[in-house]
């Protein structure tokens, strides 16, 4: 995605989040889904008994603004996205950082950046004939 496309996507997404806040919806959780080079983030809101989703798809290099100014409850889930996927969210809350010094970088991504190729998991023999 080009820089302009990313900026447009983020502006549109931000507009939808502000719409949710104005309508009085409650932020439930966000789910980050890995699409190899892009990160899709699905924000789930609860409004008057119905669940609504707001989606954002950006490349991993793009910075996703934090929504804690509108929804303070999002701090922890955003930090989890940073720790587990290597997403960039400036100003996310502090956590136990999985990434620093442990050699484990973005464990939930399918194409792990810069990490040594993971050894093949030792699958115990199952159904050997």
């Amino acid at each position, binding site marked *: 995605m080009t820089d302009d496309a990313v900026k447009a996507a983020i502006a549109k997404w931000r507009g939808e989040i502000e719409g949710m806040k104005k309508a009085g919806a409650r932020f439930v959780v966000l789910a980050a889904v890995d699409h190899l080079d892009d990160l899709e983030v699905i924000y789930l809101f609860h409004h008057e008994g119905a669940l609504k989703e707001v989606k954002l798809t950006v490349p991993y290099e793009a910075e996703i603004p934090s929504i804690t100014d509108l929804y303070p409850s999002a701090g922890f889930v955003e930090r989890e996205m940073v720790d587990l996927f290597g997403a960039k969210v400036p100003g996310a809350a502090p956590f136990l950082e999985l990434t620093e010094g442990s050699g484990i970088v973005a464990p939930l991504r399918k194409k792990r950046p810069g990490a040594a190729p993971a050894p093949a998991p030792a*699958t*115990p*023999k*199952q*159904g*050997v*004939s």
Partner: protein
Amino acid sequence: MSMLTNSLRNLFSKPATRRYPAVEADIQRDCRGRIEYDMSKCIWCMMCSRRCPVFAIESDKSAQTHKVFRMRCIACAACVEACPTDAITMRAHYQEPGYAPIVDTYKQEGTPPKPAKKEKAEAPCEPKA
């Protein structure tokens, strides 16, 4: 009843704790505890080792043995449900803790029985729900 009355009543009644393992445990019937193989019925479809979620069963068709890793077994009864000839039964029992991994080997002597009917022979290839 106030806490004082409660406490006085408890002071003069039997202890509520059962001193297991010095005393036998109070296991309910149908408790999921320990699997056992009836090797005369095994037709070597391998469904038990394929369905085991923790790889606690290793089956060897040519040597005609099933190895059960007792310390890995979580007593979920997935193997009991998967077996098409009811060769595996589940007995109510609490696995005692130990210092070493316990492996029980079940060997089948002689030739395995043929699958009984045509419907039974198809069941091993199609995983149940």
